[in-house]
């Protein structure tokens, strides 16, 4: 029996290591055949922004890893609408994350689901294991 795992990402990608080490758990966890969702709330939405350049801070960028999540069957990525709006961001500012649906001849589908705060709380309510980073 598989469980529903939810990884909540609340922090900006750099400044602290939480975002990177969250991603490391997600990638390892993907091998366990569980039902996996990710949520990005608060400053966590910055993790998905496109055009990141870490050269100035001398750190390796892990931004491209999010693009690979679809290949790991991690394709339920919830982004909280209010968190984007509070930061003056829209979906267009985020990377276009996709996955290929084996059941539909590998049709490319969007991974990101834009949800309101109250919709996200319903999603969270439905989870078995919630890890927050």
């Amino acid at each position, binding site marked *: 029996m598989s469980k529903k795992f939810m990884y909540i990402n609340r922090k900006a990608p750099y400044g602290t290591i*939480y975002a990177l*080490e969250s991603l490391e758990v997600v990638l*390892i*966890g993907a*091998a366990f055949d569980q039902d996996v969702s990710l949520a990005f709330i608060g400053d966590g939405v910055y993790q998905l922004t496109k055009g990141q350049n870490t050269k100035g801070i001398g750190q390796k960028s892990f931004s491209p890893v999010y693009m690979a999540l679809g290949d790991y069957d991690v394709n339920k990525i919830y982004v909280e609408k209010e968190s984007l709006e509070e930061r003056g961001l829209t979906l267009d500012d985020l990377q276009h994350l996709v996955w290929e649906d084996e059941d539909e001849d590998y049709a490319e589908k969007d991974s990101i689901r834009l949800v309101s705060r109250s919709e996200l709380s319903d999603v969270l309510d439905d989870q078995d*294991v*919630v*890890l927050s980073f």
Partner: protein
Amino acid sequence: MKIALQINEGPYQHQAADSAIQFTKAALARGHEIYRVFFYHDGVNNATRLAIPPQDDRNITEQWIALQKEHNLDLVVCIAAAQRRGMIDEDEMKRQGKDANNIAEGFRISGLGQLIDAGIEADRLIVFGA
């Protein structure tokens, strides 16, 4: 109930490390089973045997060691998080060619799969810190 803990913050810096110990004691006292304690992020620093807190203060690592001995707890330190923070055991010391090790007896180093496994097997996974 079968309970697993994830500890995300280092000792003394953050209340999470103390809260996790107090929670563990309370859960055991109520007859719950602690399936595993998984140390992640700076939480791996809870496993150092080289810390020397002031004598009139609590010693967080020794509290874990005592609990581990008494209840045979499975204290797991994430290897990826540990390595980048200089937390290594004797095996890793030899394998990586380092000149010292610092993981206290009673803790074991293992991978993130142990955290996912804890999420699957335990009735509740409780996250402390972050």
